[in-house]
């Protein structure tokens, strides 16, 4: 079968897209399997946004540890330096200012809106109807790879046991 040039290009683009997709998947899976776990304690959000369907808004306790006045008015995005304690629960160290990091310190991204710090991801997705399972969640489970990239991999209960649907 002889393909016309446009079809050849279309197939080439498709291959490129799929390669890109699968490299990203493998990359993230590596982070999940080899990454180090850090628990971020959840602050109660009242009311929890279960009405919004299949996701939950998250707030983290460490967000409140950022002292007032550290951030300038225009700083709407940035990184917090956190460190895990003996139970791998994250403690606030300082706001990151470009300096190199000591061993075991982790960077998490935050957004600031109306003066409030929000660590992202600040939402957790689950299937519609599974909201009840997650009502008692106490921790957000993060996994960090050696390059410092991280994922929110799930929510955990008071004993830091992952909640599975």
């Amino acid at each position: 079968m002889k393909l016309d040039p446009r079809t050849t290009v279309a197939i080439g683009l498709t291959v490129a897209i799929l390669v890109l997709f699968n490299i990203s998947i493998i990359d993230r899976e590596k982070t999940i399997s080899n990454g180090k776990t850090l628990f971020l304690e959840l602050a109660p959000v009242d009311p929890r946004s279960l009405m919004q369907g299949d996701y939950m808004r998250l707030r983290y306790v460490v967000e409140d540890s950022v002292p007032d006045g550290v951030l300038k008015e225009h700083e709407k995005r940035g990184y917090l330096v956190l460190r895990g304690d003996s139970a791998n629960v994250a403690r606030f160290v300082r706001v990151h200012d470009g300096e190199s990091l000591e061993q075991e310190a982790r960077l998490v991204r935050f957004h600031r809106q109306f003066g409030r710090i929000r660590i992202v991801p600040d939402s957790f997705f689950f299937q519609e109807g599974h909201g009840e399972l997650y009502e008692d969640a106490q921790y957000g489970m993060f996994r960090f790879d050696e390059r410092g990239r991280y994922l929110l991999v799930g929510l955990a209960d008071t004993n830091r046991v992952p909640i599975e649907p």
Partner: protein
Amino acid sequence: MSPPAPDIDAATETGRDKPVPYGPVPCAPAFGARGEDRMTIDQVPANRRLVEELYAHGYLTTAARQAALEFLNPRDQWTLWISRLLLVVGSALALSGVVYFFAFNWSQIPPIAKFASIQIGIVAAVGAASVWGLTRTHGQVLVVGASVLVGVFLAVFGQVYQTGADAFELFTAWSVLILGWSVISNFAPQWALWLAVTNVALGLWWRQAALPTEEMAFLIYAYLALLNGMALAVREWGALRGVDWIARRWTRVLLTIATLLALLVPASTLVMADDPTTSMLVAGIMGLIGHVVLYSAYRHLLPDAWAVSATVLSGCLVLDAAAYRILSSALGDNTAATWLSLGLATLVIFATAMVYLRSIAPKLKAAHD
């Protein structure tokens, strides 16, 4: 555009009585040809009414009437239409079925299966499109389907691996990934999808990454107007060069609406603002100039009654905003008087626009034909 007039001479050969004379002579009396305003046969529009009247006056046999109607409205035209309609509705339903399938079975499907099935869908769509050929509608619709699936993949990816990435990153990636397919698709709906995704990406980028100061916040409308205005310009350029897939009427309608919205919001905000910011001034003035450009383009260069009407009505909304500003500052605290006079002003503005549009409509129509 109407099809060429049927050959009445030929049709009446089998007729019951006198043949219709040809050339610059009065036509059948049913057309009301009176003395001086005689029409020549090539000025008579060929349509169903003409055929029926000729038949009613006995100039056509039943067979000739049937042949003429078949010529004017080919039987397969509606089947073509319904086939297109079913193609579009079917693709839309199949795609939304895919989306609901994933939503309903979310936690039962392991991530690898989610990713694999979307990728298989993409491969199947592009594969089938290659077999059918990208020059045919079926193939092109399949590429649109593959482009939607790329968005679905990115959404699923963002939910399985929660990195806190901003939504603009998803839309930007989507826009970049399907750009190549759009370029080779030669298919207006594919470009419409791309443009919609890109508009959302630009808007979200502005809010989530560009983080403008209040002084600069309105500049996004200038960007959106440029994006959609450029798309409209490319559309008109392509249409003039005889690229028929881009010259479809709905592409002009869609792009004109998109461009006008991005011009209308800052223009009307500017005329109402007491203390406009820099970006309000820039985007607002651009909005006002944009209205003038669109108006002159569709009034003179590419006469189009619909596009002129849309631009004039959008301009009326800007004028109305200006009227509100003037009246509320003139009448001050008297809100009842402000709103009453604003109502009257609105009536005057829109009525004037209507009268004007009706007066130019015949010229535009003639130029368009």
